């Protein structure tokens, strides 16, 4: 507790410094001194972390597939009818062996990510999931140390993003933002969602700012010369929509309207300098009408105009729904993952074109993985899953963590990770995944527990993918 309090106090000072910059008084020395190792960074220093969330629980079993004959046979036997046939797989060759003879493949509709992996720009983290602390099968059966509400969409999504179930208020993306927002001249643009509201992006001070696929939306009345012929209408509108209120619902709504009013013009002016046709961010023709691609593009554009927005550390969020494939999985997931792969490939190329590939890291997350067993048309909610990390700074072409034996445990041949129907206990926690990303992003080791409260429960804090 004492240590925790100390950390909180230090962090409080840091925050006080960071946010007093906005208020006018600027104890900049204190600010810099408290953010370790940043003083030496050049002014052009920039880092962005992009969370790409696959809503619904992606079936990781059909995303990274065992490819050596023995493992493939076990995989196939575990989900007959739901397996991806070998002609539709393309091998990926990790630099580090996961075990003698083990080979892996991605579906060939994920050629973009396959290429990024092979060229060393993408890594895979195997069997990662929500944990409070390492868990064994005996723990699971005794219901010891388990994260609450396993297998529940909304709760596991919240746990993934904020380490507690639905109702959580602070996500680790936002917490990273808290610690590093002082580097940004306008903290509004520290945490940006191109999808809807995501708890991941909210810290104690940092709030998410939401953008549409085309950027920010102006309130027409605020930019027009008159409102129904009234030149004073806009003043009334501002008052009525943004005034303080003792009613907390009204107050919260007013705060959102105020952020909308305040930021839209600035974002629009900045984005105008990086239009959708800009060669560094333009979408390839096949993605021109894809909503997900447009969301990814607005992030690419915001990165391009980062200096106009005064941003040096940014966390972004983008999401795609539809991964809850209980039914029609082979078709549905292929369509989704093909888009994911294409869009991530586009995004990586945009960061290369912009010259920021080493400063932007994208990673995937999802509610949970899915059962290895088939229900005849799809799969069900499970736990650990595989995920991608993409970017110039990534130590790619490798699989990190521990790849599970892809087979369902039986009495005769138990699988120590299988809690039933191929619901695998994660061997790496989201905490470790997050800590590795946070360290790269600039969070000091001493601050890590304030971002990832349970990180101390894992003997290895950081993985080597960054």
């Amino acid at each position: 507790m004492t240590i925790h309090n100390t950390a909180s106090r230090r962090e409080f000072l840091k925050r006080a410094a960071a946010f007093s910059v906005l208020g006018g008084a600027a104890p900049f020395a204190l600010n810099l001194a408290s953010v370790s190792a940043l003083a030496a960074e050049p002014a052009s220093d920039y880092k962005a972390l992009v969370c790409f969330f696959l809503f619904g629980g992606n079936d990781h079993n059909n995303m990274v597939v065992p490819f050596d004959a023995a493992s493939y046979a076990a995989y196939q036997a575990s989900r007959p009818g739901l397996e991806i046939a070998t002609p539709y797989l393309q091998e990926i060759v990790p630099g580090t062996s996961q075990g003698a003879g083990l080979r892996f493949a991605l579906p060939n509709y994920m050629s973009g990510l396959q290429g990024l992996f092979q060229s060393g720009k993408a890594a895979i983290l195997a069997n990662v999931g929500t944990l409070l602390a390492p868990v064994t099968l005996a723990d699971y059966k005794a219901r010891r140390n388990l994260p609450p509400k396993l297998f529940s969409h909304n709760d596991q999504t919240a746990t993934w993003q904020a380490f507690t179930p639905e109702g959580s208020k602070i996500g680790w993306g936002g917490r990273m933002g808290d610690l590093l927002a002082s580097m940004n001249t306008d903290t509004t643009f520290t945490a940006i969602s191109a999808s809807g509201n995501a708890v991941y992006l909210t810290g104690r001070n940092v709030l998410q700012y939401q953008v549409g696929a085309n950027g920010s939306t102006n309130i027409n009345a605020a930019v027009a010369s008159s409102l129904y012929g009234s030149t004073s209408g806009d003043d009334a509108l501002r008052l009525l929509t943004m005034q303080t209120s003792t009613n907390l619902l009204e107050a919260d709504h007013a705060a959102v309207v105020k952020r909308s009013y305040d930021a839209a013009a600035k974002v629009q002016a900045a984005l105008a300098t990086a239009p959708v046709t800009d060669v560094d961010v333009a979408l390839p023709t096949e993605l021109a009408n894809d909503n997900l691609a447009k969301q990814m593009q607005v992030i690419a554009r915001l990165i391009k105009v980062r200096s106009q927005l005064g941003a040096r550390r940014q966390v972004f969020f983008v999401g795609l729904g539809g991964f809850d494939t209980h039914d029609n999985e082979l078709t549905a997931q292929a369509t989704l993952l093909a888009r994911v792969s294409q869009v991530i490939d586009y995004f990586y190329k945009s960061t290369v074109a912009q010259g920021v590939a080493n400063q932007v890291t994208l990673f995937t997350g999802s509610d949970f993985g899915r059962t290895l067993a088939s229900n005849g048309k799809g799969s069900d909610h499970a736990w650990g899953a595989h995920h991608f990390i993409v970017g110039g700074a990534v130590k790619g072409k490798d699989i990190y963590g521990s790849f599970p034996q892809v087979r369902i445990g039986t009495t005769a041949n138990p699988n120590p990770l299988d809690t039933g129907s191929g619901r695998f206990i994660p061997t790496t926690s989201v905490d470790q995944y997050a800590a590795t990303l946070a360290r790269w992003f600039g969070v000091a080791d001493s601050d890590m527990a304030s971002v990832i409260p349970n990180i101390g429960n894992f003997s290895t804090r950081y993985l080597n993918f960054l």
Partner: protein
Amino acid sequence: MTTIKNTSIALLLTILLLGCGGGGSGGDSAGDPSQGASSSSGGVDTQAPVAPASVKSEGSTATSVTLSWKETSDNRGVAAYVIYRNGQQIGETSSLQLSFVDRNLQPATTYNYQIKARDAAGNVSDASIEVQALTQPSTTTKDTTAPTAPTNLAATNVSNSTVTLRWTPSTDNVGVVLYEVTRNGVLVASFSAGLNAFTNLNLLPGTAYSFAVRARDAAGNLSPLSAAISVSTLGSSGSSSSTSSSSSSGAGSSSSSSSSSSSSSSSSSSSSSSSSSGGVVGTPLTAPKASRFLAQASFGPKMSDISALTGSSAESWLNQQFAKPQSLHVPTIDSLLKARLADADTTNDRSYQDDFMQAFWTNAAKGDDQLRLRVAFALSQIFVISFDSGLDDSVRGVAAYYDMLGRNAFGNFRTLLEDVSLSPMMGVYLSHIRNLKEDPKTGRMPDENYAREIMQLFSIGLHQLNPDGTLVLSGGKPVETYTNEDITGLAKVFTGWSYGGADKSDNRFYDNSTVRDPNSRIIPMQGYPKFHSISEKSFLDVTIPAQTTATPEADLKLALDTIFKHPNVGPFIGKQLIQRLVTSNPSPAYVSRVSAAFANNGAGVRGDMKAVIRAVLLDPEARDANGALAQTATYGKIREPVLRLASWMRAFEAKSTSGVFRIGNTDNAAYQLGQSPMRSPSVFNYYRPGYVAPGSKSGTAGLFVPELQITHETSVAGYLNFMQGVVANGTGQNANDKAVASYTAELALANSPADLVARINLLLCNGAMRPANVQTIVDAVTAIKIPASPTSAVDSAKRNRVLLAVFLTLASQDYIVQK
């Protein structure tokens, strides 16, 4: 048929060719036969239709002209008519529509009209002969006659804090639009001329007040004030019995006891279905209280609703509503499809999601069974299915599901749960249709999707609840209601279900089109023993032993009975209904009262939805008799975007030429509402009942604010921009099906900003907008100056005043948060 189809294909090709070729002189290359009904040609159509003939003005008002014309011809058919006013294109109609109403014109002005016909290839005919039309003189010059003063003003119901007034209506050469009530010489209320009664609330006890009433017509002419009457409220010790409305008293009251007693008898009778209140009328409502109640219990108040309910009670309104026939959605789907099948165009022979949207908005705005419609909408956000995944084309099925929710809204929850579980649309959405029993040989297991969500979302939730909705704690921690093993056990119950029909053949199970029942998407699923699990099924402390014969129906009954009996259902569902209708954070005591009504309707019946609805809407915490709760920091709910639009439609009685409102989906948060009926992004609805907004004051205070989940910087701008357009121009897909407000009553108040804003405040904010905000709007409205002349400028300024007042109110926090 074949010929017509070929024509359609040819037209399609034509459009494609034009689209690719940039619309140049593509006709040269085609050698297109220029005449006749040549359906075989695939060439480019370059022949324009014949110019429309017999164009004439069918009549005019001060602000509109109605045009008509004769059908004209084209080698491949006319696609649309284009209307020009003074040389400017102002609108289009489809080829079937041979008339057009041009609105928002200036009075006493001559306009020139021409019509052109256009075919599908884009060829436009010559213009018709020009027709002149003269609008009527403006109403201000036309109508200068004021209404007569109201007579026989009387106080009919007096308590220590309220006075109800009635009077004999005024007469007017055109018609009375509004009545205005003054108290001690100050205007205190204005409302539409539907009902000649008004209840003034929050008066001081034992105090004499002077009341008078005047009438106003659409042109703004005011009658003289009626003779004033003096009424004294009862002394502070005097209690008014809500049931003895005929025993009205008060100095100066020439009480017309016949009218008041008839009003109370009409409202208290016919409550045979009322089990708890025993025919008691309940507290008479004032106009603001009536408006507030209707905001919770309907898609929003109209002035006539407020007037009708003023002096009556919430209880009697509920009883009336329980008896009303259901407004259905499937018939709209069917009739639209029938019309498309009958017309010449075979490319549109299907149903569209917008057909459902049309049914939804038309019913929401105009349906008489408002309570049922509103509760059904609430249920659709708990028992979620969505066009958005898997049901894109199942328009009729989704409409039938919605009608099923409406049917069960006043039924029993057990039936609702079964109808939901057996809905083929739910079967598709949560994938338990054609769910196969486990297969030990392959390791295949049943789909767990529905088993999980029926418990997590539709009935008991994740944690054991006390009857007041708070968590049962064990060792300081919540107790989970089920484990994953309960899910895998219950999943077996939901195996072997598929579309209903005449038999249980494998072909029907697999939905083979050769045996498909035409109503398979709207009738309940049926059990197919062959595909239903016979192994042991354990869930929620119930075990169905292994069987030799599959019994899907019996298994389902046991499962649903078990879930239905779970003590969580009352607080779990009851609290969500409170959140949908009344407030996001009800007190535990409020939840417990609703739970109790769920557990027992007073006659020993569990799950009676009418009892639950009564408990939700009549609870002291919902009615907030003295208005104190609404002043607290935590009360209320963010009015969800769909309700905001619906309330606007009702408050200003939006109309369309056709009588229906074809409003498409309003999904887009950047320029629409960010929410559409039946298009939730997932089974978790647009927002969760337990949503805590990160980084918010409400979150810090431990509050749930579900609707904040879809509130962000883009959505708030999108809403304001959307409504700015809607307020002025209406909304809808075709000119004829567009919901447009004429603001007749509001325009009549445009010269008096305070009165105008008071009216809008009563309609949209149940008269509870904080006074400073009322003043802000009054000032903004007043700043739009109304010139002395010309009439067109006067009317334009008046209209702008109304539009501004309506829009600012729709934007205000007082409207956004329903309290």
